[in-house]
Each structure stands twice: as structure tokens, then as C-alpha cells.
């Protein structure tokens, strides 16, 4: 993966840059020792590493503003970092950048149940947002798999989704307002506790901008009342096509499950060996979850099971109690870990139109044979967000490159059938060079205008999202 040439002139000014940062931050908030900065050399895309020039860990919006003002004045690129769980390399440093980590800004600022929102500092983890309100019967809906660790700042940067977004939407649908610090240190309040923008929807474009427009320090999030209950049903089928048709029929019948998860045979086998959830050995497995009171769940599940039976399932398993529900989810939740036991893996997240599911799975199977790399598929079937896990051996020379080529082919296929490169992980550096597959030059140009407006010097996370040759002239300014 190509990264921009490190600006030696900036590196040479490191002592002056560190001194300026130390003037506005407490001593423990500026990390510049060559060994210590290694803690920030990568995020969850661990195949790529590069220690930053320095890292700062501010505690307030004012400190973030001061840091950015200094870096802006000194012409130093800044890479914002939430919890460092990006699978796309969104927080990967360059050797001449300052990492701005918001991890120490993790407080709850305001909880308002009558108006159903919570205002938090952006370094707070996703799960602990729900944790702050669940004893009062509320929750924060977006639930990325990394929710125990990932920060709201990163969720906003990547517009993160989760397993339950078929019903509840993704981050952008649950974000009411932000405090945003621009690269020049300007602090903006955008949105608030009310709905929708009075002018242009700037909040809508900030969410998902991968830390390139500003640093979000505080966020106002919608919280929702917890449903009375939820219950999954597991169904197995002897072909991907039939499972795909079943998903489509459930949706067409007018039911909106909160989650429809899909696993294919390689993934089921790996998961069984690892987690022993007692899954049936079959070609395709669906977990469909519905919510409500007991009677409502019964009503919905009866209809779902009736539809499933029309597709001759090889297995149909209802959860009779909480324990059985947990067992149904156990395998799905262990899927990534199970694949990781077999080998290193790369997780893709292209989205496809649900109708293309059988075709895309067949093509991925064929590519798997061509490349000689195994792949397991586990994904959110209701919304077409795929998660092919390609297995490779990081210690085997050439294997990572082979895996990346395979991954690129899968993502091109997603675009070809009318889908997109990434459904919830973000572009980062991982899919940066594939952007031309999805977007014509003028489509990208319109996006770059937004960056030009918010960060005219192109100092915030400049080497991400867009192919380097496309942004070269802008970054040179």
C-alpha cells in the first residue's frame, strides 16, 4: 500500500512541534518518544504500520482546538484517532503526522430521557453509551461488532452500522449533533437536540467523512426505549440461493426483523469447530431476530417460520428461552474469532443488492478456487452488507498480496452488481485505490470540494479515502 512520501522538513522540526504542543497540553498528554509512539503505529488493520511523529491525548475541546491551531500554523498533518479499531486503516499514521487521540475524552455530559438523547464526549466507547442509559430502559442503537472497544468518534467518522441496522439505521440516522473542531482550531456546534438542519445538512456529510473534515469532540446521540424482548430463530438451507429467496420472502411479507444474519458452509464449519454452538451442517444458515412483547414475537415468528417452511429448511430451531437464544447467537458472534483460529484473515464489507446474493456468493466461491485461498461468508443479509473473510498466512511471502488481489476482485464484483465497496467499515487506506471502480472522476471531485471547504490546506487525515494521485495536487498546497 502506497503512502505519501514523508515530509522530511516536518520531521526535522519535531523538537519545535513537540515543544509547541507541550505548551498547551499537560505533560502526560504529549507522547513523542520513539518507542512510546509505536503504540499508535496502526489500528485494527494491522498489516500496515507506521509510527507517527508524535501523539497527543487531549481532555477537552479547548485542548483539541489548541492542538489543531498549532498543527495548522506549523503545517503538520493530523490523523484523528478514536479507539483505534478501524479495519480500514482510518487511523493509520504517516511518519510526519501528529496522532490526535480522543480516548481520554470519555465522559457523559448530559442525559435527557424526556427528549431521548445523550450528549457524550467522543472518546466514549459505543457500548458504554448504552451502559449509561440501560438501567433506565434505554439504549443506543448502532452496534458495530467492536462495540466494546470502539469509540463514538470513530463511529461518526466511519458512519458505523451493526447487526441491527435493518430496523434502527446506522450512525448517521442516530446522530443529532456534534461539536466539531476544524483544522484551524475553529469550534463549531452543528445540530443539537432538535431534528434536522435549518440550512444545509452539514452534519450529514460530516458523519462518514473519516476524520477529514474536522475532529468531533462531543456528540448528541438519540437514545431509544429498549424493546420488551427479542428472540431469534435459526434456519438451515441446502443452498445459498434458497436462503437468499427466504430472506427476500420474509421482507416481502411485510415483516421487519431487527436482524437477519447469514453464514455459509465454510463459516459454519469453522464456527462449529471453535465455538460448538451446535449449528447444523448445511450450505447456508440464517439467524432471524424479531423484537417486541412475547405475544408480538410469537406473531412475527409464526409468520417467519411459515415462510421458511415453504423453502424446505434442513433445520428450523426456535429459541424456547434466553439460554437457547444465546446459543443461537453464540456461533454468529464467534465467527470472526473462529476464522482467526484457522489463519490470518482479511475482512471485506462490500454491500450488494440483496437480489444478487446467490450470484455473488457463487462467484466468490469460484474466485476462492482460482486464488487458492479459503473464504467464509458471514453477513447482514437483510441489508446486503457482506463480510467475506479471506484466509491467508501472513508469514508466507506473497500471501498478503494475493489476498488483497482477491479482496479487490470481490469488491469490484460488488460494484459491478450495483453495490458498493464498503457498507460500514469505511474506505481508509484499505479501499482507497479502488474508489475509481465506484466513482467517476467528477463524482470524486464533488466530494473533494467538501474537504476543500472544511480543510483548505488538506492537513486532516490527508492520505485516506481518495486515491493519492487524485488528491496529490491538493495535498501539495
Amino acid at each position, binding site marked *: 500500500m502506497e503512502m505519501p512520501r514523508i515530509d522530511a522538513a516536518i520531521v526535522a522540526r519535531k523538537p519545535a512541534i513537540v515543544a509547541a504542543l507541550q505548551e498547551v497540553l499537560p505533560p502526560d498528554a504529549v507522547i513523542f518518544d520513539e518507542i512510546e509512539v509505536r503504540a499508535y503505529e496502526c489500528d485494527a488493520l494491522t498489516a500496515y504500520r507506521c509510527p507517527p511523529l508524535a501523539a497527543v491525548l487531549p481532555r477537552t475541546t479547548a485542548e483539541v482546538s489548541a492542538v489543531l491551531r498549532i498543527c495548522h500554523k506549523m503545517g503538520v498533518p493530523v490523523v484523528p484517532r478514536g479507539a483505534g479499531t478501524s479495519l480500514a486503516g482510518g487511523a493509520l499514521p504517516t511518519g510526519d503526522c501528529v496522532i490526535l487521540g480522543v480516548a481520554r475524552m470519555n465522559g457523559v455530559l448530559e442525559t435527557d*430521557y*424526556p*427528549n*431521548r438523547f445523550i450528549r457524550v464526549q467522543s472518546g466514549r466507547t459505543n457500548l458504554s453509551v448504552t451502559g449509561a442509559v440501560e438501567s433506565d430502559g434505554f439504549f443506543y442503537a448502532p452496534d458495530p461488532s467492536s462495540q466494546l472497544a470502539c469509540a463514538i468518534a470513530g463511529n461518526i467518522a*466511519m*458512519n458505523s452500522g451493526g447487526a441491527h441496522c435493518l430496523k434502527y439505521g*446506522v450512525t*448517521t*440516522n442516530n446522530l443529532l449533533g456534534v461539536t466539531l473542531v476544524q483544522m484551524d482550531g475553529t469550534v463549531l456546534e452543528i445540530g*443539537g*437536540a*432538535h*431534528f*434536522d438542519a*435549518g*440550512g*444545509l*445538512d*452539514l452534519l*450529514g*456529510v460530516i*458523519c*462518514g*467523512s473519516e476524520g477529514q473534515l474536522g475532529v468531533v469532540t462531543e456528540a448528541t446521540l438519540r437514545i431509544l*426505549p429498549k424493546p420488551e424482548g427479542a428472540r431469534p430463530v435459526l434456519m438451515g438451507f441446502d443452498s445459498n440461493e434458497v436462503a437468499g429467496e427466504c*430472506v*427476500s*420472502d420474509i*421482507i*416481502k411479507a411485510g*415483516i*421487519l426483523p431487527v436482524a437477519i444474519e447469514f453464514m455459509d458452509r465454510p463459516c459454519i464449519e469453522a464456527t462449529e469447530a471453535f465455538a460448538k454452538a451446535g449449528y447444523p451442517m448445511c450450505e447456508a444458515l440464517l439467524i432471524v431476530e424479531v423484537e417486541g*412483547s412475547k405475544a*408480538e414475537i410469537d*406473531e412475527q415468528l409464526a409468520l417467519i417460520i411459515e415462510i421458511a417452511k415453504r423453502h424446505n429448511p434442513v433445520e428450523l430451531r426456535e429459541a424456547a428461552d434466553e439460554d437457547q437464544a444465546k446459543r443461537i447467537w453464540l456461533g454468529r458472534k464467534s465467527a470472526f474469532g473462529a476464522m482467526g483460529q484457522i489463519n490470518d484473515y482479511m475482512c471485506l464489507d462490500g*454491500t450488494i*443488492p*440483496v*437480489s444478487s446474493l446467490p450470484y455473488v456468493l457463487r462467484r466468490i466461491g469460484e474466485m476462492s478456487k482460482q486464488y487458492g485461498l479459503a473464504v467464509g461468508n458471514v453477513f447482514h443479509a437483510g*441489508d446486503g*452488507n457482506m463480510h467475506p473473510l479471506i484466509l491467508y498466512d501472513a508469514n508466507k511471502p506473497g500471501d498478503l498480496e494475493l489476498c488483497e488481489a482477491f479482496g479487490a476482485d470481490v469488491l469490484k464484483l460488488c460494484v459491478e452488481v*450495483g*453495490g*458498493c465497496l*464498503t457498507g*460500514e467499515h*469505511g*474506505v481508509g487506506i484499505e479501499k482507497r485505490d479502488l*474508489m475509481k471502480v*465506484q*466513482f*467517476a472522476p*467528477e463524482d470524486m471531485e*464533488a*466530494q473533494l*470540494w*467538501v474537504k476543500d*471547504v472544511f480543510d483548505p490546506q488538506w492537513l486532516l487525515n490527508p492520505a485516506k*479515502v*481518495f486515491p493519492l494521485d487524485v488528491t496529490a495536487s491538493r495535498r501539495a498546497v
Partner: protein
Amino acid sequence: MKPANEMELSEAIRGANGPLRIVGGGTRAIGPDRAGEVLETGALSGISLYEPGALTIVAGAGTPLAEVEAALDGGGQRLPFEVPDLRGLLGRSGASTIGGVVAANGSGPRRIQAGACRDSLIGVRFVDGAGTIVKNGGRVMKNVTGYDLVKLMAGSHGTLGVLTEVAFKVLPRPEVEATLTRDGVDPAAAVAAMAQALGSPYEVTGAAYFGGQIRLRIEGMIGSVAYRSGALRKLLGAGWDVVEAAQSAILWREIRDVAPFMGQAGAVWRISIKPSDMPQVLAVLSQAQTLCDWGGGLIWALVPDAGDAQAGALRGALAAMGGHATLVRAGAAVYDTTPAFHPEPAALATLSKTLRAKFDPRGILNPGMMG
């Protein structure tokens, strides 16, 4: 001008040498009458894709809203955000287009539960002010590839580009609906009751307050609606009546389209606030009729069409409590001194202005509309 396709639209904009007034069905534009050559999108019409199993529909921006709604109805589905029909309120005729709905981010009572138009919008094609055709988003409901210009286009009132195609995530149409009503309630008690209902697990999809009456809507499968309306009544205590099916739908069309203000003289405000601020905002207005939606978070106010139509008092109050007020209807004299869109803080206004200049460098797309 009424270009026959996207290419012709692009050429029309490229060749324009003065301001353009973008018109879909001409039913939603806000603010004073503006000069400019009319550019109609009506010929960019037709549903190009509808996949009920994928909850997705794609249509030309000039497609009549009624055509989109009829197609979805045939598939047992609907646009989640309950598009208001503002013709009566704004005194317009014509047929609303789906592109106009997006340009205005038209969202009705269900916004509290299903999101606004911008939340269901998953893809756009548009022509910018230089005549360049741009696409963003697509036809899949989870998509974080590149910046989300889809959201930016929703509610941009034709000032960033002329929409040519829009794609939506849609939802199943529920089997039935029912509404709980309670009369003779004051604003403070209404806000509290609506907050209690919206904070319950019974999935209230409408919470409005008009003429002293609270209305709470439940939608879904038959058994589920019966259960939840019963549970909600139990939670809220005595004094509630239940209105079902078609009668319930009539109550919500009235709220959605702000029907009580139709045919009445006066200026009309649309005010978005934190719901619990509703009683305070009502107290700021004088000689006003009001209709509240979104649990109190949306206030429609009919005030005398004179002076600044109380903009100073209203917007002054909102400066302290947050939110925004749009003057959706007023006479020319009021509009001469009072901007239709809520003035933004200087830094945000500059960002928006600079963005508009990027997308429309010659300043010809609905110039002056949003400031």
C-alpha cells in the same frame, strides 16, 4: 426549459447565462417568488427499479410522488417518512415530484420513529451548477464509500445541484393503525404525556398535539397494535380514547398536511426544537394558532402576516434554546425584511456559502433561496 433527460439538463445548465428557478411539481418551494428562468424536471420521470425484496426503489427526480407511492403500495410497502402534502398550506396546485420531496427534505409525523426523508434516501444523481453530472450513494442501504453527499443534497432546495434521480430504502406498510387521543390538555402536560409514550417500548409512530388534543399513533400487525395500544393506555392512565383504521389515518393526514391552517390568512412558521421546549416557544408567540408534531419537537405556527411575523422574538428565543424556525409562508412585505431560512451562526453560514460556491460557482441555482 424542460429538458427531456439528464444530458439535456446538463446542457441547459451549462448554457444558462442567468439565474435558474428549479421546479419539480412547484408544490413545495419556500420563500418569496424569485426571478430566474424556470428549469423543470418533470420530464425526468419514471421508476427505473423497484425491488420489494430488497426494500429499494429508484426513480427519476421528476416522477410524480403519487406514482412512487402507488408503486410501493402495490408491493405492500411505503416511503417511511410520510411525505407531507403542503399544497393546501402553501396555496399551490400541481403534482408533487419525488425530486422536490428530496430537495425540501419533506418529512411528516413518522419522522420521530422512521427518520426524515434524508434518512431513507440512499442515492442521488444530480447536475451541479457547472452542468457536471454527479452521482453519490447508490441503491444499497448500507454504504459508507466516500463522503455522504446524499444527505447534503436532501434539503438543499436546489441550491447545490438539480436532482435527476433518487433512490430510497422503503419499509413494509403495516397491516393496521390506531390512535389514542386525549382532549383538554395544556401544552406542558401534553409534552410530558408524549415524552412518556415515546419513552415506552410500544413504538409510537406519531405524537402530535393540536387544539388541546394529544394524538398518539401505533402501527403494525393486528395483534401487535391491539397489544401495544392497550399497554400504552395502561401506562398513561385514564382519559384516553382509541380511534382506529381509516379514522386514525384521517387524524394523521390532518397533522401531516397542517390542514387546519389551510385557507386561513397569515404567515406560517415551521419550528424544529427540543420537544420539551415546546411550551416555552408557544409562550413566545402572540395571536398564534399552533399545531405540534414530533412529540413537541415540531411546531407549525400561523401568525399575523405583518411586520417581521414575530421572527425577532421567535428566532431570538431559539438562539438560547437551540433549534431553527423557517418562515414557510408569508407575504412579500414580510419576506422583504425577514429571511425564510433560519440565519446560521457566522462560521456555519460561511461554510455553507463556500460549499454552495463550489457546487454552483456561477451562483445560478435558486440563488438567494437559502441565504
